[in-house]
Each structure stands twice: as structure tokens, then as C-alpha cells.
């Protein structure tokens, strides 16, 4: 069965992709540019929910890895609507690129009905800039000399990651002992006066669109680390934004992801309430909280992802496809770590000796 939704240039009919740095569709053949409105006027951009074709199941043992580079073990089959090649991909893949003809393919069945996203933030960072940023990022003092970023950076993939966005409020009841300090000098004495209070605050704080990634295949900490996304670029979802990139649909529902959002909301509420108390120090006694979520939305966020292996150890890097924030854990050269630490130790010895001479530790 042919996977559907590929996008054609309204001028010349060639395959057309979303261009991140120009914020439009650009045809590689005739050079014409089109906005989303132009594509919709041409009858493209939306999803024909009645003519969506389904995937084929992969027989047990038939394939062991995807053909499009997506990560996952639950594989299904589609047929490229352009060249007829077989695409083996993860069940949760919503968009991919045919490795045979290079055309963008959007799996309609993964973005309609219950899987239809509410919003998308289109890519703003092109691959060339990703490569430059990764080069800068990997130039750290402890990075091994033989960590060849040139070889691996080309494997970075632009992927739309599914996120649940939680909006609601948190009511917190905070009890603490607060202390106000006053210091003064009189004659040859220094006085410190501390006044203690029993502090109670009952406050409510609102939150809008707290994101939690909804894919079990991506590392939660990594997706947290590339935040925040700027929601001013968020637009109502149109499948055409996915063309030229990979995309995943959620495989963890909103109830499964809720606890992560709840924890973040509660912690922020506690901090905000603490900051509203005008004391020099606060010793918390109790904090009771109640979170009420009034809206949960589903959005696709742009990320550049890289999975690589170095000395048999797996590494994962991610870049926010809108803001350019780069994160990951680089490999560490232990010899360099020991040398730099020893140099730091020598510096500490010198500082300690100077402090000793000055009598700071008498």
C-alpha cells in the first residue's frame, strides 16, 4: 500500500520541502518559494482523512532494522508513493524520507484522528548550521582527540518529536519558619539580631503549555535539556510542515506523561511562593500542593538528533531545531581529565600557599 502525502511544487511539479532558515517551501529545481497559504491555495498542505492508506505489518524475523534510519524495534512497512520502494520504519513514525528516491513521505494514518497534532513549531535551523554548532559544541577540553565529529555530524537527522503540552494551575500551601537578620556594630562589639516568624502562604499559580515529550524512543532528560521552545512560532498543525524531515507520533499517552509535568509545576509553584516571602532565610516545614490541568494539547517540536557510537559506547546528541540549543554528553578522555585536574591542583597549591603567607588561615 502506498504511503501518502508528498508535496509538489505548484510551478514545476517537482518534490518540494520545507526550508528551515527561509521559513517557507522552496523548490530545489525551479527555485520558487511558497508559503503555507500558497500550498493550501494549490490544494496541498492539508490531510485527506478519507483516503489515508494503512501500513503493512512486518512478519516476524523479516526485518531487524528500519530502512530510513529511525530508531525502534516495532517495525511496519509502507510503500513510497513516488518510486514504489518498500519503506521499513518504526510504527510510530509519522514522516520520513525514502532512502531510494529521496522524497519526503508523510504517513497520513499517523497524523489523523486521535493522532492529529494540535500544533507544530516548524524547523528554523538548517543542517549546515547544525554541523557548525556541533563542531563548536564538541570542542571541549576533555574531548578525545580521535573523536571525529566530521564523520558523525552528517548523520544528524531533523525529527519532529511529539510533546504533550499541559496547561493548568497549582495551588500550594506553604508553611515555614522565616528569619530576618539585622547586624550592627557598637563600640568594639558586633551584634546580630535574628527575628523568627511562623510563615504561612496559600497561593495559586497558572501554567501554560508545559511540555513533556511523548515518545518512548527519545531520552527524556535530553528533551528536557533542549528547552525552552519559543511558542510565538507555534502554528496550527499542517502535514506539509513535515515534508523533508522525519517525524514521530506519540506512543506515550497524556496520562503516562502527566507525572513529569506535575512534578515540574509543583516545584515551580513552591519556588514562586518562597520568593514571595520577604525573609532572609526560610526553613520549610510543609508544602501541600494540588495541580489541576484544564487543557492538554499535542504538538510536534523540531529537533536535530544524532545517535553515535564511540569505543563501543553509545552517545546521543540533540539540538533544538528552533533555538539552536545543543546538548549531549561528550566522551571524556581520562588522561586529559587527570592532567587538567593535576594542573588545577597545582594552582590550588599556589593559592593555598599565598593564603598561608598572608595569614588567612592563622
Amino acid at each position, binding site marked *: 500500500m502506498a504511503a501518502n502525502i508528498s508535496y509538489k511544487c505548484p510551478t514545476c511539479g517537482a518534490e518540494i520541502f520545507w526550508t528551515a532558515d527561509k521559513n517557507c517551501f522552496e523548490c530545489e529545481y525551479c527555485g520558487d518559494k511558497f508559503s503555507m497559504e500558497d500550498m493550501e491555495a494549490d490544494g496541498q498542505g492539508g490531510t485527506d482523512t478519507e483516503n489515508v492508506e494503512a501500513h503493512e505489518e512486518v512478519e516476524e524475523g523479516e526485518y531487524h532494522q528500519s530502512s530510513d534510519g529511525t530508531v525502534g524495534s516495532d517495525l511496519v512497512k509502507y510503500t513510497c508513493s513516488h518510486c514504489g520502494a518498500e519503506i521499513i520504519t518504526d510504527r510510530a513514525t509519522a514522516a520520513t524520507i525514502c532512502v531510494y528516491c529521496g522524497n519526503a513521505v508523510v504517513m497520513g494514518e499517523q497524523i489523523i484522528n486521535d493522532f492529529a497534532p494540535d500544533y507544530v513549531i516548524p524547523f528554523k535551523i538548517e543542517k549546515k548550521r547544525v554541523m557548525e554548532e556541533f563542531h563548536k559544541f564538541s570542542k571541549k577540553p576533555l574531548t578525545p582527540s580521535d573523536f571525529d565529529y566530521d564523520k558523525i555530524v552528517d548523520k544528524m537527522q531533523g525529527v519532529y518529536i511529539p510533546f504533550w503540552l499541559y496547561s493548568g494551575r497549582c495551588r500550594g500551601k506553604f508553611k515555614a519558619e522565616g528569619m530576618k537578620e539585622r547586624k550592627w556594630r557598637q563600640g568594639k*562589639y558586633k551584634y546580630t539580631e535574628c527575628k523568627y516568624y511562623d510563615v504561612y502562604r496559600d497561593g495559586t499559580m497558572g501554567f501554560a503549555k508545559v511540555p513533556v515529550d511523548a515518545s518512548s524512543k527519545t531520552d527524556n532528560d535530553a528533551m528536557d535539556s533542549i528547552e525552552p521552545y519559543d511558542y510565538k512560532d507555534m502554528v496550527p498543525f499542517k502535514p506539509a510542515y513535515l515534508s523533508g524531515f522525519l517525524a514521530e507520533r506519540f506512543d506515550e499517552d497524556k496520562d503516562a506523561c502527566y507525572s513529569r509535568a506535575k512534578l515540574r509545576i509543583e516545584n515551580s509553584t513552591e519556588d514562586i*511562593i518562597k520568593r514571595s516571602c520577604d525573609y532572609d532565610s526560610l526553613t520549610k516545614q510543609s508544602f501541600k500542593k494540588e495541580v489541576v490541568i484544564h487543557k492538554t494539547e499535542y504538538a510536534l517540536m523540531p529537533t536535530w538528533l544524532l545517535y553515535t557510537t564511540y569505543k563501543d559506547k553509545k552517545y546521543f546528541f540533540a539540538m533544538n531545531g528552533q533555538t539552536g540549543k*545543543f546538548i549531549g*554528553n561528550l566522551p571524556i578522555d581520562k588522561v586529559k581529565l587527570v592532567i587538567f585536574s593535576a594542573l588545577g591542583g597545582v594552582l590550588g597549591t599556589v593559592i593555598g600557599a599565598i593564603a598561608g603567607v598572608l*595569614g588567612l588561615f592563622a
Partner: protein
Amino acid sequence: MFRSLLRKAGFALISYGTLFTPLIASAEDGDVTIAAVAGFPIGAIITGCILVSLSHTKEKATKADDYVHGKLKINEQSDVYLRTTTDKEEIGD
């Protein structure tokens, strides 16, 4: 990984203690040697921690400060005075 780190830290502490304890023990109070010797591990640990943190940038999000909507609404508040303590310290010459 945690056990490996503990083993390495323990080995480093034992080595450091073996090498420098006689030196510290023979030094008099206020001797520069103590401050200088204490400076080495402190400098090494701080340098190592800073450099490792530059290479490891992944971090779990525990707050939602970027997604706050509106202002904090205080429903109820109270500040009840408990006690006062006063310390007095003689300032050295």
C-alpha cells in the same frame, strides 16, 4: 558506574593521605605548608568538576519556570512572630 567512581575517589583519598599526612603532621599551626597541601585536592576537584560539566550538558528538567502564566495569586497569608535572638561578638584589634 557509581561504584567505579567511589573506588577511584577512595583510592585518590588514600594516596593523598599517605603522601601528605606526614608533611601536615610535621607542620606547625598556621604553617604555610598546610594551606598549600590542602589547596591541591581542592583545586584538582574543582577543576575536574568544571571540565566534566562542560562536556556533560544533559539535565533532567525539574521546574516549569519558563511556562508560568500570569502572577501568583495569594489566597491567604500569615506571619506570626515567634522570638528574637541576639548574638554579640567582640571585634578583634
